[in-house]
C-alpha cells in the first residue's frame, strides 16, 4: 500500500540528520612538507585542544602558531565546550575510545585524578622546568609519581565591582557577604528608580555544573564550612557554616540576583556584567582583560578584589582553578607533542597570557614581573588569597570527584531555586556522599 511506502520512506529519512564528521584528508600536509626545502625532520601535525571561554581560543592559537613557526611543524586546533563539565565528558569519550584525534589536551585542575592514566609522563621532556611553578599545582598534577600535565595558568574566584556606582552611592568595596548583599540591594533599588530597570546587584555562575561547585565551595569555605570532603576523605559538608552560606546565597535569588543566574555559566554572567547590567560579579581573572577592552561599555569603571568573607569572623577565599596541558598516550608523536606543551607552559607564553588575557601565571617569579603587575594591578591581592584558597576535593575523592561535585552542585542548585531548604539539602547531600564514599574509604 502507498501509505506504507510513504511511512517507510519517512523512516529511512530520519537518520539523514546525522552529523557528518568527515575529517579533512591529510594530503595537504604531506605535499607541503615535501615541498619545503630539505627539511631536517619530517613535518608533524599536532592537534591541540583549546578552551573557548573569553579570549582562550585566540590566545591558544597564537601560542600554537608561534611554536609551529619555530619548529616547522603544524598545529591543528580543537575548540572545546565552554562548560567545563561538558568538556570533561567529551574528553572521557575520546580517551576511553583510544582516539588519536587530539594529541595535547587542556585539562582542568580537578581532572588529573580522573584522566591521569591516559596521559604520558612529561618529566623526561621538561628538563626540570616544573620546579619554577607553584609546588602545590605540580603536586596536584603528579599522579603515581608521573607528571601527567604541565600547568598553563592558575585561577581563583574574584569579585568584580563597578567602581563608578560604588563612588556614586558613597559605598566601599564590601568586606563580607552581608555587606555585599546590602550594598547591592541599595544600588540596585536606587538605579532602578532612576530608570535602569534591568540592573541587578550581583551575578555569579549558578547553573547546575562544575562552576556552581566553585562558587558554592567559596561561600561555604568563607563561612568556615570546610571543603565538602576533608583531606582524609571524611565528608564534612553538613555543618552550621555551610548552612549559613547556602541560606545567604539563596536569599540573593530574585532579590539582588536574577533568577536566570541559576542557568549562567562564566560567559553568561560576564555578558550581564560587561553590558553594564550588574553591580557585582563573581568570576575568574580572565574577565578583567575583556572588561578593559576597547569594545567594553564598562571600560575603566571596574574594580577587582578578593571575594567577601562569610561574616565578620569568616575568610576571604577563592576557588582554586586553572588549566594544565597533558599529552595523550594515544598520540602518534608524543615527543613532539610534549615539546609543544613545554613551549606553551614556558615563561614567555605565561607572561603573554598574563598581559593579554589576565591569566594568572603558575610560574612564581612572574608575579614580580613589572609588565605583568602593570597590566593586572589586582594580581598581588589574588596571590594573597592563595594561602586560603578553596581547593575542590579532587585529591581525596580521586576518580569519584565528578560524582561528588555533581551531587554538591545539584544540592546547592535545589536550595538556590527554593525547592529544598539549606538544612534538608545538606542532610541528604551528606547521606549521599557517605554512601558514595563508603564512609570515607572512597
Amino acid at each position: 500500500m502507498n501509505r506504507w511506502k510513504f511511512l517507510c520512506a519517512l523512516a529511512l529519512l530520519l537518520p539523514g540528520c546525522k552529523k557528518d564528521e568527515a575529517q579533512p584528508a591529510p594530503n595537504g600536509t604531506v605535499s607541503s612538507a615535501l615541498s619545503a626545502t630539505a627539511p631536517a625532520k619530517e613535518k608533524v601535525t599536532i592537534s591541540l585542544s583549546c578552551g573557548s571561554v573569553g579570549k582562550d581560543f585566540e590566545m591558544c592559537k597564537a601560542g600554537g602558531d608561534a611554536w609551529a613557526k619555530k619548529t616547522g611543524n603544524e598545529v591543528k586546533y580543537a575548540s572545546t565546550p565552554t562548560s567545563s563539565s561538558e568538556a570533561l565528558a567529551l574528553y572521557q569519550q575520546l580517551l576511553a575510545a583510544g582516539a588519536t584525534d587530539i594529541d595535547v589536551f587542556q585539562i582542568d585542575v580537578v581532572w588529573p585524578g580522573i584522566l591521569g592514566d591516559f596521559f604520558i609522563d612529561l618529566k623526561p621532556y621538561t628538563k626540570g622546568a616544573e620546579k619554577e611553578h607553584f609546588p602545590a599545582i605540580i603536586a596536584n598534577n603528579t599522579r603515581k609519581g608521573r607528571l601527567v600535565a604541565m600547568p598553563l595558568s592558575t585561577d581563583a574566584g574574584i569579585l568584580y565591582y563597578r567602581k563608578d556606582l560604588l563612588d556614586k552611592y558613597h559605598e566601599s568595596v564590601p568586606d563580607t557577604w552581608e555587606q555585599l548583599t546590602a550594598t547591592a540591594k541599595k544600588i540596585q533599588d536606587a538605579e532602578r528608580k532612576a530608570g535602569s530597570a534591568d540592573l541587578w546587584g550581583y551575578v555569579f555562575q549558578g547553573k547546575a555544573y562544575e562552576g556552581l561547585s566553585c562558587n558554592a565551595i567559596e561561600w561555604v569555605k568563607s563561612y568556615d564550612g570546610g571543603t565538602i570532603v576533608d583531606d582524609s576523605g571524611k565528608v564534612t559538608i553538613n555543618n552550621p557554616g555551610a548552612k549559613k552560606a547556602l541560606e545567604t546565597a539563596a536569599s540573593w535569588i530574585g532579590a539582588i540576583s536574577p533568577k536566570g543566574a541559576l542557568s549562567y555559566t562564566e560567559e553568561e554572567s560576564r555578558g550581564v556584567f560587561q553590558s553594564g547590567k550588574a553591580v557585582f560579579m563573581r568570576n575568574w581573572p580572565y574577565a578583567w582583560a575583556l572588561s578593559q577592552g576597547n569594545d567594553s561599555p564598562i571600560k575603566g569603571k571596574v574594580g577587582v578584589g578578593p571575594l567577601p568573607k562569610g561574616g565578620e569572623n569568616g575568610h576571604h577565599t577563592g576557588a582554586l582553578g586553572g588549566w594544565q596541558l597533558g599529552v595523550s598516550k594515544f598520540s602518534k608523536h608524543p615527543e613532539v607533542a610534549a615539546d609543544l606543551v613545554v613551549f606553551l607552559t614556558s615563561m614567555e607564553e605565561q607572561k603573554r597570557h598574563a598581559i593579554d588575557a589576565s591569566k594568572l601565571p603558575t610560574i612564581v617569579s612572574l608575579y614580580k614581573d613589572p609588565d605583568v603587575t602593570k597590566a593586572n594591578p589586582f594580581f598581588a591581592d589574588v596571590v594573597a588569597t592563595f594561602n586560603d584558597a578553596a581547593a575542590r576535593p579532587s585529591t581525596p575523592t580521586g576518580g569519584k570527584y565528578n560524582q561528588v561535585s555533581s551531587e554538591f552542585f545539584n544540592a546547592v542548585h535545589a536550595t538556590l531555586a527554593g525547592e529544598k531548604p539549606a538544612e534538608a539539602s545538606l542532610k541528604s547531600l551528606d547521606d549521599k556522599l557517605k554512601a558514595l564514599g563508603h564512609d570515607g574509604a572512597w
Partner: protein
Amino acid sequence: MAGASRLSRRRTRAAWVFLAPMLVLLSLVALWPLARTIFYGFTDANLLHMQDAEGVGFANYLSHEGGRWRGVLADPLWWQSVANTLEFAVISVTIETVLGFVIALVLHTSFRLRGLVRAAVLVPWAIPTVVSAKMWSWMLNDQFGLVNSVLLRLGIIAQPYAWMVDADLAMKAVIAVDVWKTTPFMALLILAALQMLPTECYEAARIDGIHPVHVFFRVTLPLVRPALMVAVIFRFMDALRVFDLIYVLTSNSEQTMTMSVYARQHLVEFQEVGYGSAAATLLFMVVAACVGLYLTIGRVRLQAGEEA
C-alpha cells in the same frame, strides 16, 4: 497441490534470502550493542578501565550493602527521571497529535500555494535537534532572549521569566519546544493517511447532509486510525528516549532529567559503565513495556470497534 506447496516453499526460501542481509545488519548494529549493554549491566565496568570489569550480579540494579540500599532501583533520581520521561512523552505526544491533526486537515483542503505551505510546515522538523534546541535556548534566555522581550513589550508578563531554571517552567518550556519541532512530523503522517481515504464516503455524507463534525468523528477518524496509531507509536518511542533536546536546553538538571540523560550521566560523566548500562537496560525495558501496553490497549479497542 504438490506443485503449489513447492512454489510456496520456494517463495519462503527466497524471502529468507532477501531478508538475510538486513537481519545480519540489524543484529550487528542493534542486537549486538543491546546485548553488550545488558551484559555490562551485570559488571562493575569503569569507562577508564574497561578491561578490569568483573561480574557483580544484580548489584547495579539493587543491593543491600553497609546498611544502605544501592543500585539504580534504589535511586530516587532514577524514579524521578522515569516520571519526568513519562510526563514529557505523554503530554508532548498528545499535544503534537491534536495539533498535527488540525494542521493535516487544513493542508488536506486544496488552496493556492498548498505545495509551498506543505514544504514550509516541515522546516522545524528538518532542522537538526541540537541546532533548534540551541536556537530556542537563546530565544528563551532570561536577559537577552527574544521570548521574554516580546512578552514584556506586549505587557503579558511583568518581569522576565527564567524559563530553563524555574521548576514549574522548565518542563513546560521543554515540551513547548518539542511540540514546535515534531508537530510537522505528525501532521505529515496524518496528511499522508488522509490522502489515501476513499472519496465515496464523503460524497455519501454530503448527499445525506451530515454535519462536518459528525463526518470527522464517524468517517475520518475511524478510517485514519490505523495510520494514526503507527504515527503515535513512532513519536511515543522517540519521546521516551528523548535526550538531545533536554540535554541542550537544561543539561543535567534534575527537574527535567529523562532516563536517557540519567543513563548517559552515569555512563560518561561518572565513568560507571556498569551502573549506566543497568540504567540503559531498564530504559529499554520501560520503553518495551510502554509499547507493549499501548499495542495491547490499541488492539482491544480496535476489536471492540469492529464488533459494534
